[in-house]
């Protein structure tokens, strides 16, 4: 299926854009804004607002019809490929398939001190009405808190015999989250024999979920993740139902 943005009529393609150009306000600057809009594929484009911000910058609002088509069949998205389990089902699966508690080590790494997100996943209190992983009888959760250095995280993972390591990254300025996550996965690669490192999971509201391979980790969770999604994923990845999924047996 092909769709286009919708303003007030099917197919009108209408899109709103705003940005700043580092040029003083003038007719030329407005022309430059329209040039950019054109390159973004807006045609026709209407420059509806231009505001000088000091002597060196101008802010613009542009509306226009984007000529791009959105091909729904080519949409890239990490769909949940595992069933959403209840807490009870998660516990049962771990008990029967793993026969020991599953160990999860969590932390907010680097200089990031935003713990609300990882706490929402790990603490009993939970998120959006769902209890966090600590609530699950068959999960043993070690939450290291904020600003954990990568070496300390690796050490804790080894000491706790972690099955999964969950890290949170909220600050994204200058791609801090990407740098920290890469540093983390490299450290685990070094510290563990090949193929034996724990499952590496990252979360935060500004991650691109398709970047796992690039970052050397197993899974990324974004905006609005709930604890149940994470628990279900952990079961899927670490205690899979071998009967139901024969293709997984090697």
């Amino acid at each position, binding site marked *: 299926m092909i769709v286009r943005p919708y303003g*007030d*009529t099917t197919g009108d393609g209408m899109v709103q854009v705003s940005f700043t150009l580092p040029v003083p306000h003038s007719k030329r600057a407005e022309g430059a804004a329209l040039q950019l809009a054109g390159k973004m594929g807006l045609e026709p484009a209407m420059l509806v607002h231009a505001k000088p911000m000091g002597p060196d910058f101008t802010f613009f609002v542009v509306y226009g019809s984007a000529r791009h088509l959105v091909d729904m069949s080519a949409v890239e998205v990490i769909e949940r490929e595992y069933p959403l389990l209840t807490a009870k089902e998660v516990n049962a699966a771990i008990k029967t398939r793993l026969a020991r508690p599953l160990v999860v080590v969590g932390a907010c790494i680097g200089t990031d001190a935003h713990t609300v997100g990882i706490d929402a996943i790990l603490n009993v209190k939970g998120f959006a009405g769902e209890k966090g992983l600590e609530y699950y009888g068959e999960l043993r959760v070690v939450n290291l808190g904020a600003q954990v250095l990568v070496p300390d995280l690796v050490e804790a993972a080894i000491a706790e015999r972690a099955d999964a390591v969950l890290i949170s990254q909220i600050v994204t300025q200058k791609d801090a989250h990407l740098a920290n996550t890469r540093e983390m996965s490299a450290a685990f690669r070094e510290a563990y024999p090949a193929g034996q490192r724990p499952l590496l999971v990252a979360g935060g509201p500004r991650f691109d979920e398709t970047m796992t391979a690039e970052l050397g980790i197993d899974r990324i969770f974004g905006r609005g993740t709930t604890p149940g999604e994470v628990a279900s994923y952990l079961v899927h990845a670490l205690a899979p139902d071998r009967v139901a999924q024969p293709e997984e047996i090697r």
Partner: protein
Amino acid sequence: MTGKLDLDPAAVAAARALAREVGEPVVRIAREHTTVSVERAVLRLAGITGADPDGIPWVNRLADAVRDQTGLERGVALPVFDALIRENWGLGDLLLLAQKAAAGAVEFRLPADPQAARAAAHQAVSRGIARIDANRRERESLIAGIGDAPRKPWIYLIVATGDIYEDIPQAQAAAREGADVIAVIRSTGQSLLDYVPEGATREGYAGTYATGENFRLMRAALDDVSRELGRYVRLTNYASGLCMPEIATLAGLHRLDMMLNDSMYGILFRDINPIRTFTDQRFSRQIHARAGIIINTGEDNYLTTADAVDEAHTVTVSQLLNEYFALEAGLADWQLGLGHAFEINPAIPDSFRLELAHALLARELFPDAPLKWMPPTKHMTGDIFRGYLLDGFFNLAGAMTGQGILLVGMMTEAVVTPFLSDRDLALQNVRYVLDAAGKLGEDFRPEPGGFIATRARTVLGEATELLQRIRGDHGLLQAIADGTFGITKRPADRGKGLDGVVAHADGYYNPATEILEGGS
């Protein structure tokens, strides 16, 4: 009067009395005239519908034929029903008559003994009015059964795609998001058409044609969504322009709930002849009164061309006149959606408090009217962020001063007719403000004698003075000719649609007026 402004009741009574004095001569003129559209409205009440192959409604063809042969000084009813009787056709055969008349095959006359024609006309028109009455009852029972808007102010949203089939899903979406009233904006140009287009239409500019069929389709769609939502969603259109009486009639026949209907908008903003407008207005308001339709007046429009501070008192004057004309036509206070707007230049100091003063003045002058509160338009720019904020403060002023009908402002006001998402964002804005601060009025008590109270009193004073001046000079028509409202000059002997105005001659008969004024 809620009494936050400490207005002097004597001053309020005096202003109201002046409005009556100024309005009365105009009512007299309206009573002594008819218009082509009033006459066509009579025929529509009698049941005629449809259009010829060129799209000209049969009601126009019929009325034109009558006018050509007998003139309209005594109305269309007698010649038409006289002809029907002579053809030996039933009351349901008006369409046939129109078609035959259009072919030049009917001879119209003013029957010497009008009795039979009068009776037939009365009976035919009664049926139309009975349908209006039934619609009113149905509205009441739907509201009782389904439920009403959950709170005041009612949230009023426009759709304006030009295509009734795009409008319908957008209107339903808006209702689902919280709209209590949907207005279908009309295509540019319709107001100057001297006929009402027929059928479902898909090609309006910046609005959708007001037609009987469009009314029916939209009302049915809103009935569906009303049931789905458990609250009756009202529908609004425009009884305005050259066909004001006919559109009012169609609204009554299709159970619309509110209509834009102003005593002077057409004169000022469409250059329609003043006598035509006042005559059409009186008839259309009689219909609205009967149909239980709430009218919305158009004072907000003045402030798009005139300055909202300097000319604030002209809004008050117009509200008083609209009130007088409305009550005279039989409307009740609860049907008076008197208009005003949040149009003060936001760059002037204390602009929000000035808005509160104006809005509270209207509230206290018309305590029982469901005031219509219009969002900023003139000072909206392409800066959609600033616009979204301004709309929030408009919503707040509406809540704080107890407005009845809140027209929802769009951040794209200066850019495009609303996008689907603009409406959604605008409703989110309204919801936030009403939920978070809807009851702030309880804590809002203007300092007695302070900035707000003083400003309100000043505006009332200026309005009273202006009314005095109008009375002292040469009356309302002259004031309109002099550019008193919306800084636009409109002489009484000029303007569009003048040729459709006809002074009554002895023996003028209009069964609709008879029923509506007789209350039978």
